[in-house]
């Protein structure tokens, strides 16, 4: 399949819709082990991104992702702002100025995004952060799409299930990074908000494929 700028615009609309619908839920998750702003921040960021996209009408996938990245960087704040902002910026850089992207290029861009997140936040899998969703999902996509020559649409059911499972797997973890780590053992038993918004991120990538 080919991914055009329209795909990424659709993705951002769907991601924004999920963030808006889950604003309170994400905020509640963050209130339990953080400072209760993750949903508010992500929702504000997504709305800013949509606004900037409609104001500036970028012409390539890379330009769309750059616009989103800059919008998130300058409007989300907190830990999630630079992390998601960097993720989109890295994807933008990875895509160069192509009009159309193929599945392998898309996965490589996501891999760069993951590296950006890990470079900035220094988190490893198991530390109860968004990395706990991103890393296994990107590994899965590399396996299936780059090595296995499948397309994203072929693996979407599995991908969303995997993201959800990894998101839930953060519940028994003790946080080692971010605000939740201050709680020590009291962070155990709660789902990580950033892992949850990351699940929504990957779900949106898939939903943007169809009319869905």
């Amino acid at each position, binding site marked *: 399949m080919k991914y055009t700028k329209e795909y990424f615009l659709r993705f951002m609309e769907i991601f924004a819709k999920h963030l808006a619908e889950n604003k309170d839920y994400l*905020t509640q998750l963050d*209130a*339990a*082990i*953080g*400072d*209760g*702003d993750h949903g*508010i*921040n992500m929702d*504000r960021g997504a709305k800013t991104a949509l606004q900037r996209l409609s104001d500036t009408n970028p012409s390539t996938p890379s330009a769309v992702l750059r616009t989103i990245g800059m919008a998130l*960087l*300058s*409007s*989300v*704040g*907190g*830990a*999630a*702002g*630079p*992390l998601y902002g960097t993720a989109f910026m890295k994807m933008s850089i990875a895509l160069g100025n192509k009009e159309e992207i193929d599945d392998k290029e898309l996965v490589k861009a996501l891999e760069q995004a993951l590296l950006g997140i890990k470079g*900035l*936040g220094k988190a490893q899998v198991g530390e109860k952060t968004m990395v706990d969703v991103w890393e296994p999902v990107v590994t899965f996509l590399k396996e299936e799409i780059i090595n296995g020559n499948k397309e994203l649409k072929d693996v979407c059911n599995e991908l969303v299930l995997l993201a959800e499972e990894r998101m839930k797997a953060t519940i028994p973890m003790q*946080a*080692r*990074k*971010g*605000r939740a*780590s*201050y*709680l*020590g053992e*009291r962070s155990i038993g709660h789902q990580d908000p950033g892992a949850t918004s990351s699940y929504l991120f990957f779900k949106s990538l898939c939903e943007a494929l169809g009319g869905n």
Partner: protein
Amino acid sequence: MKKLINNPEHVVKEMLEGMAAAHPELIKVHFDPNFIYRADAPIKGKVVLISGGGSGHEPLHGGYVGKGMLDAACPGQVFTSPTPDQMYEAAKTVEGGAGILFIVKNYTGDVMNFDMAADLLRSEGYKVESVVIADDVAVEESLYSAGRRGVGGTVFAEKIGGAAAERGWALEEVKRVVQKVADNVRSIGIALTPCTVPAAGKPTFELGEDEFEFGIGIHGEPGRKRLKIKPADEIVQMMMDAILADMPLEKGDEVALLINGMGGTPLMELYIVNRKVSQILDSIGVKRYKTLVGNYITSLEMQGASVTVLRLDDELKELLEDPVLTPALRWKS
């Protein structure tokens, strides 16, 4: 949630407008991106100090902008780190050719956003240094966490660093002395009630009618443990035990104290806290050189208090005494 606000989404902007109206002789406010800066900036040849962090901790940081303290402060959304474009624009507005020092409270988001701003500025040829304040002894196994949080010690770091910069010290020297503050300051906080972020509309956590939270941060994040409420003296003893276990003080040491209210605690209670803190220090022969009592770094309307102890040497004492003229801290000017 009952608050004296108009729209939860506009609280930061409207607060900044109210600050600008109140203190035109001291500060100016820039919007989009938001930052507060000295009315007399830029000052040629002076190192500039910039701090920032989530809003809701007022007077920190905006209330400390002025002569002898910060050159600019970047307020994020409530309890949310500011974004790199704020620090970037603030730095370009106030810098005077002698370099920029960021004072950053140790929170993942703050550190990442300030780092990104520093990278941007450095890529344009500016000299930028950062000191991270991580004074909260409530965070125990800091090797396995994001590290200690930056809390009350930040006020002393900004005051003392600001004095050094005002004296015309070079960037390396200003950084050195702020790092010295960071190394010699310890804090711990407790909360009797949570607080409510306007945009969230409900309390950040729940606390029973007979409970208090020991080791609270400043973002409404829960603390080290939840305990049954006790007399103030016992709570203060626990707080001082935690500080002194981490930074033992000896007879003859001199300290500056910050007995800080979290926003909703009456001054009466803070003085009752100071009474016990003073008794404990007196009993081990530690000299109380200077004591600040009041709301200096808050968590909205949270009821609670924090205690900050800064171990002093002659250099820190002198810089602490230097004139300061800001909306929230002023002496000798």
